[in-house]
């Protein structure tokens, strides 16, 4: 996800001390106290009990159910988001994760028994999930509700206290969240802090037990460097140019519609939106044709007045996107706008724009577009697509449209990306059991569903032994002897076999030999 590029170099036209007219900023000198108060709460153990976590999750669900109108209004003001998109893109995912968490929380929290060799037969071997402490969640403006609340579910479910920092760019939503959250969630445990560069910098100087940041890789680096000072683990959810490959074997009509939907949802301001298309020359013309048709079907001939199409978040982003369109048409010989290209500065509107035959060196291809502009590049075979993708940073998602198994297999094994979705766009993000996160420049760590719980938990190795059979201890205690060592190896050394059955039989045999000879040895010593 490409957050406001300006988070840390945002031209501060707004009043530094008080924030914007819409969103009052948290006074910087109060930030350490807020973090400290949450640390105190965590120490009391309040957030640890399952019933407390459940209650807070219920309250979060109530918050969504009671306020769908308010959420529509706030996201409409910030992004011109249609209510449908806001329900689908913001609320559905959170509701799913809460329901899942409420269903499975006791199961997630329960210690997991882990496999043990026969040497540990009398021991209890488990992994215990425990809360980390006070965690920080920094959201982005493009999905201003979801990117804050979805991680928060994991933080609550795992028993942590949390500081929430919504993006100041989506000011209306941030303001609404700041007003509403304390009415539902325990304000001793969960606090909202607002602000821009100065506030975020002050916030990052505090010690947290985990930081989950959604945004761009420039700020991601700053967050990680700040985290290093306190050895705080980080989850970084960033973006990148997610390629979309269209193979000749695909159903072009369905493909075009699925791409158009994924690209122009939220006016392209989606971290996993298809960034550019690599299309097989054979189906190139057909694809362009179908894309035009799909845009027309979806938004009608007059997109500007369609209620189903979003706006660009800020003037700054609008100017950046407009410049990309202008450069694409004037400077390049081959490439041309085959659809869209219009814009309206007063509404921050940019039409769904297709730029055909885009050159790989074009500014459009050098950074994440994060807007409704879709460059199309031709390829002649799948090798070309693979080397094109592998020459660039690892993307957050790769979309492949193909019916040919060998092509799918090759993309699957020869490219790396946060996710690979074959024959559709975006939908992997709503599957709770798939990890959502990037790799390399597109991020580190993953969440959604049970993984959100795991992100905010420490996996403690737990082993409980008894004082029974302590005679075996002498094998490992000094003075050391060769015979003791042989015994130790007999118990602990593993054997290699590709056949599972052989392995089990071997283990049992070893166990049997070991136990009988050990008892014999013991008895003999006693009576000798």
């Amino acid at each position: 996800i490409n957050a406001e590029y300006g988070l840390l170099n945002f031209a501060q036209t707004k009043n530094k001390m008080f924030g914007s007219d819409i969103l009052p900023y948290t006074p910087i000198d109060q930030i350490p106290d807020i973090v400290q108060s949450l640390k105190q709460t965590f120490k009391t153990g309040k957030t640890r009990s399952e019933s407390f976590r459940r209650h807070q999750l219920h309250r979060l669900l109530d918050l969504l159910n009671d306020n769908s109108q308010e959420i529509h209004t706030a996201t409409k003001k910030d992004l011109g988001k249609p209510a449908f998109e806001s329900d689908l893109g913001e609320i559905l995912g959170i509701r799913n994760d809460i329901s899942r968490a409420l269903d499975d929380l006791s199961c997630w929290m329960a210690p997991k028994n882990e496999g043990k060799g026969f040497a540990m037969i009398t021991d209890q071997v488990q992994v215990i999930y425990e809360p980390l402490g006070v965690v920080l969640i920094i959201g982005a403006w493009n999905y201003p509700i979801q990117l804050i609340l979805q991680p928060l579910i994991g933080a609550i479910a795992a028993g942590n206290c949390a500081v929430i920092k919504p993006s100041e760019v989506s000011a209306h939503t941030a303001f609404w969240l700041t007003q509403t959250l304390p009415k539902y969630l325990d304000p001793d445990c969960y606090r909202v802090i607002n602000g821009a560069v100065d506030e975020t910098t002050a916030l990052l100087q505090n010690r947290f037990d985990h930081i989950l940041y959604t945004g761009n890789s420039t700020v991601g680096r700053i967050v990680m460097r700040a985290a290093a000072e306190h050895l705080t683990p980080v989850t970084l959810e960033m973006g990148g140019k997610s390629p979309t490959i269209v193979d000749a074997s695909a159903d072009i009509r369905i493909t075009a519609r699925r791409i158009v939907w994924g690209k122009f949802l939220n006016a392209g301001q989606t971290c996993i939106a298809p960034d550019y298309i690599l299309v097989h020359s054979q189906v190139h013309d057909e694809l362009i044709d179908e894309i035009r048709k799909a845009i027309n079907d979806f938004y009608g001939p007059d997109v500007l007045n369609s209620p189903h199409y979003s706006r660009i978040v800020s003037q700054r982003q609008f100017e950046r996107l407009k410049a990309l369109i202008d450069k694409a048409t004037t400077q390049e010989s081959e490439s041309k706008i085959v659809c869209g290209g219009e814009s309206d500065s007063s509404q921050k509107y940019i039409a769904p724009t297709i730029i055909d035959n885009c050159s790989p060196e074009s500014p459009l291809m050098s950074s994440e577009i994060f807007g409704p502009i879709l460059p199309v590049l031709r390829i002649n075979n799948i090798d070309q697509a693979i080397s094109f993708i592998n020459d660039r940073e690892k993307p957050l998602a790769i979309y492949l449209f193909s019916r040919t198994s060998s092509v799918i297999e090759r993309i699957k094994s020869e490219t790396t990306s946060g996710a690979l979705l074959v024959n559709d766009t975006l939908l992997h993000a709503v599957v709770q059991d798939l990890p959502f996160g990037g790799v390399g420049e597109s991020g580190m760590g993953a969440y959604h569903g049970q993984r959100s719980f795991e992100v905010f938990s420490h996996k403690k190795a737990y082993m409980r032994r008894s004082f029974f059979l302590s005679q075996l201890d002498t094998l490992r205690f000094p003075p050391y002897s060769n015979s003791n060592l042989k015994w130790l190896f007999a118990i602990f050394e593993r054997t290699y076999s590709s056949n599972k059955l052989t392995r089990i039989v071997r283990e049992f045999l070893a166990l049997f030999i070991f136990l009988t000879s050990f008892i014999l040895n013991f008895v003999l010593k006693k009576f000798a």
Partner: protein
Amino acid sequence: INAEYGVFVRSVGVRTAKQTLSKSLPFSSSARSSVMALTYTPIDEIPKMVQKVRDTFKSEKTLDVDFRKNQLRAFYRMIDENTDQLIQTVHQDLHKPKHETLGTEILLTKNEILHTLNHLSSWITSSAEKKLANINDELIVKHDPLGTVLIIGAWNYPILLVLQPLVGAIAAGNTVVIKPSEVSANTAAKITELITRYLDPECYTVINGAVEETTSVLEQRFDHIFYTGNSTVGKIVMRAASNFLTPVTLELGGKSPTIIDHKVDLKIATRRVLWGKCLNSGQTCIAPDYVLCHTSQYEKFIAELQVAHEEFYGANSQTHPDYGRIINQRQFQRLRGYINEAQNEPAASTEAQNPNGTIVFGGKTDEGELYISFTVVTNISPEAPLMQNEIFGPILPVIKIENIDEAVRFINSREKPLALYLFSQDKHSIEAITNRTSSGGLVINDTMLHLSVPSLPFGGVGNSGMGNYHGKRTFETFSHKKAVMRRSFAFSQLDGLRYPPLSDKKFSWLEFLLGEKASWGSLSSSSSSSPSEK
């Protein structure tokens, strides 16, 4: 694990370990003078070496699972065929008894290789759970190699801490740059020689050196960094990693507390504590650092320690073949400082108490041999240096506690430790420690054994580290979990539900298809338990 504190402090222009050692130390180290020269990697070679393995990764050589398995088999042979030489080099570095090297370093590394070979094929892809809406889709999680990874080892287990992570890095299909600790110079030289001989040199390369070399290595871009050492250097590693957004696994150390509760089989408990503390002369990241002993067991525990010590090492551990030595002069002087600061006799009155404690057992040192005897310190203030820093040597402070709550408070007032050991047969105590303290690992009624269980995650939390490994988790540490979803073009009529023009009716259908259905029980409690604040 507390690596050489000096890694980032010392910088000398001489690029072999033997020379830098004698140059940086004001003391004559007769015991270490037999050090084999470890040739440092020329700094201008480092970027080229990293680039070379990076290029190999791009060639897709390591994507092949059979290739990885063959490398792991060669890896196993490498250890198996050279066990005696490895034991010898570790003995030169740490005077580590042969049986300790075999039982910890060699056995655990071999087990990791075999465990990985046994299971690798089944680890690479796993399927994810489906719901109604995905009935027609294929959902899997595929483990992709990350690329070129860096493993930085520590000197206290110079084989295990470099080679165990290497197993997972190879298994996951990465190319690897290995940086053994230059402090355990003999082992580093041996490992360099063996890896070059047994493993594919295009894929796996060893870089040797101290501060300057490590700094230069960290300036390169990696796809994962796995560091074992101390938290000061851990921060430097993470800061360097942030420039390239490289994920890190940090295996650090900390003061691992050991609690002796009132209800306990003291004879067995004492021996298990002593074993853990004296293994490798206390230079183990998960060694019991200090003991919190229940008042009722206090006198008996101190007495039993001495009996057990005699059983283990006889009257004089200095001449016993199974007792190790301290790695170098620098560490020796640090440890001897603790002993010198403590007093030898119990003070007559409480006012005369030395805050640095009283030595009730041991306290013998021999600089020439870098020998420090097992030493028990009592009556120590929690603010004393010995109770502030990780000890990483055979000195054991014992502190009296009145009850288990006091132990919980004591532990929670400090940084989260890498391991916590509790000896108790009292259910209440076990629960209190399990639920109210946080540590990398928790072992009840033994020390250190959790390290040998491949199914348990090994790693710290907070100041003791981040990330974990061992067994399957080593493979996962060096893998990217790629979400793979495959849809078909069938049932594309349903697509219309999510496409504009949009309507409420469409959304209710979508919600029905994609929405998680909470079970009745989990939602019904909402109305009863939540006080309405609106």
